[in-house]
């Protein structure tokens, strides 16, 4: 894992790296605000999407890029694609959000408020890794353990179980080994990144 100083040393600002990874040029954003106006979660965000774009545009102020990486926004974004569908400049914001999340994770800058969301994603992927599918009961339990929010959802579980919606035992796919290999390969390339 590289340090903050490395990041500045490689001479590329965050928006360049986003461009490289996603092909999305945030420089095109002209700050109209249409994305923020339509984003279902803008009011919950510390920086609504148009502001995230602007933080990235200020490439010569690394502390601004830092704010984007540490934002709650990137974890709140639901990938609902509303912003992208309406952006007059056709900027694929959800894709940028993905890239920012990945970078935020790699640099260990995840916003503390997003821990719950992240824990849920991790629990989800663990389930996929070991069973090939989402094992909802197991996932909910795992998430509760990771996030520390115990009650709210377990209350719902008995009913879901009762109407036959939750399985107690996970469904598994046959070629679980392959999935193991896929996850392992990806983990490896991630570590190998400069």
């Amino acid at each position: 894992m590289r340090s903050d100083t490395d990041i500045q040393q490689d001479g590329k600002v965050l928006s360049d790296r986003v461009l490289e990874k996603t092909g999305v040029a945030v420089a095109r954003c002209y700050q109209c605000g249409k994305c923020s106006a339509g984003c279902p979660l803008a009011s919950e965000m510390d920086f609504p999407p148009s502001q995230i774009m602007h933080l990235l545009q200020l490439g010569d102020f690394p502390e601004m890029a830092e704010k984007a990486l540490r934002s709650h926004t990137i974890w709140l974004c639901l990938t609902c694609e509303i912003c992208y569908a309406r952006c007059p400049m056709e900027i694929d914001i959800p894709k940028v959000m993905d890239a920012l999340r990945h970078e935020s994770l790699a640099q260990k800058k995840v916003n503390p408020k997003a821990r719950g969301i992240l824990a849920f994603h991790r629990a989800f992927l663990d389930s996929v890794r070991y069973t090939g599918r989402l094992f909802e009961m197991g996932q909910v339990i795992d998430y509760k353990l990771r996030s520390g929010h115990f009650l709210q959802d377990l209350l719902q579980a008995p009913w879901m179980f009762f109407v036959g919606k939750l399985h107690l035992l996970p469904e598994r796919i046959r070629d679980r080994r392959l999935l193991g290999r896929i996850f392992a390969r990806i983990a490896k390339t991630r570590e190998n990144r400069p």
Partner: protein
Amino acid sequence: MARIGVFVCHCGENISATVDVKKVAEAASRIPGVAHSVEYKYMCSDPGQQMIRNAIREKNLTGVVVAACSPRMHEPTFRRACAEAGLNPFLCEMANIREHCSWVHEKSEATTHKAFDIVRTLVAKVKRNKALLPIKVPVTKTALVLGGGIAGIQASLDIANSGHKVILVEKEPSIGGHMSQLSETFPTLDCSQCILTPRMVEVAQHPNITLHSYSELESMDGFIGNFKVRIRKKARSLDEKLCTGCGLCVQKCPSKKISSEFDAGLGLRPAIYVPFPQAVPNKPVIDREHCTYYRTGKCRLCEKICPTQAIRFDQEDEIIEADIGAVVVATGFDIKHGDFFPEYGYGKYKDVIDGLQFERLASASGPTLGEIRRPSDGQVPQTVVFVACAGSRDPAKGIEYCSKICCMYTAKHAMLYKHKVHHGKPFVFYMDIRAGGKMYEEFVRRAMEEDGVQYIRSRVSRIYERGGKLVVKGADTLLGSRPLEIEADLVVLATAGVAQAGAEQLAQRLHVSFDAHKFYAEAHPKLRPVETNTAGIFLAGACQAPKDIPESVAQASGAAAKVAILFSQSELVREPLIAVVDRQAPPLYSSCVGCFLCQPSCPYQAIEKEEIRDRDGQLIKTIAKVNPGLCQGCGTCVALCRTKSIDIQGFSHEQVYAEVLALLNRGEDNV
């Protein structure tokens, strides 16, 4: 055998300080074909010019090279001097040994050597120059003005007042264009009809103007000064000469529920109608698509009622032919309508309207007699949201450009609303305010400061209807981009200004070029903004790009002046430095193989097809032909032709190849 005279100039010390002019003149005298070579202190002075004139006569010179300053400076001077001595001016060339040599290099052998290289190059060229005669074309002093909006009206009046004939063609039943639909106009808020109507009347009464309303250009041929046009006069279904415009027919027509184009769909009109009370000409037209008689064969009420028996149900379109010397295209623009904004419910909700509809609502002659009432239920809206840049500056919707007029008319609309509904709340959603113009910024400030229009900087994301209100979802980008919602009674979209629907077809008929958005292209974006690339065709008004009235009028007067300049001559004289296609004796006739690769490359559509026939009229071949009225002499076609069949006078293959060889000290011309 060539007898070339070389005249080397010192330009005081400007040349002679770094170039050994004596040596240059002396070396030049040894170039084969040079019959005379001298140097002199100031070639452009009277004695200098006299020297040239004398030498031409005394030495029987067949060509002249003046080695001096840039041809951009004195070529006309020396060509005139040559002509005065009886030498065809196109047999004179300048060797630029000042700007391109003495001024840019230090005094040295090499500099003198270069000066001589330049002289030798031009000598090689001038030996191959041909005597050329200026091209003369006659000029028909009648102008065709297409489009009777404010731009076309202004251009017609200016041309007519300069004493020339004008044919004004308007496709609608009345002239007036969009300006006639406007209520009041920025930045002064004077009433549009009041300032426009007098001009419309002047057009109708001007002895030099022939107005063909409800007409369109059918076809056009020819070139500058000599166009031939065919105009289709669509059938009005009445005899204009008999009709007195009494309007009885309009009142009595039973088919009254037709959406009025003039009222932008907010009002109704009958099947026989005059678009608006001040129309010019003030004669009705029958809309055959909606007329009961044309649809069912029954009615003819108008015919019965007409006191002058003017109605002609069997009238047919008429074709009028005319000779024209110049064309002013003033066909205007339109605004974006329809379903292209589903997220704003445009075209779906009755109370989401466009700018022209708002103009009609605000107009004293409009469907609500100037009261702002919303279309759905006729209520006076208490909250109105104006959305700027609706569809403009929006690459996702295919329009990257700024429509230029909407910032201003949006401010105007918000103001007009506030003036009429004092307790009303106008909001404007905007991205930037573009108010560049005299008193424009002040106008927008007034809307904010005096009329309390609330400006919110954001693009609207969505508009939807909820309980009879329109929910407008925006954000305030100046306040952290938090989303905000306004419940409006009426929403006005300042939709993008776009080209007229038929703009492309008309451009093809006229052979003028247009940009990616079908707005007509000017010949040069800065220095020839009223000309097109086709000589003799000029542009005025919003057909070139969205424009407001002052700009349209200024450009129209500019175009009219261009026409007047053209018409001030009875013959056009043009430099003959144009392309020609090789012609030779039978059996070849021409080396042109008729591939027409050259044709699309010409920026001026100057390359035509010519059929070569033998005496019996049998077609031998079709070859290219350059229209000397249109060719501007760029030479693009010359470089493209594989068989070198098209060449350009003054920069011919022979000339430039000789220059290259001479410059590189190869070929027959070298010392």
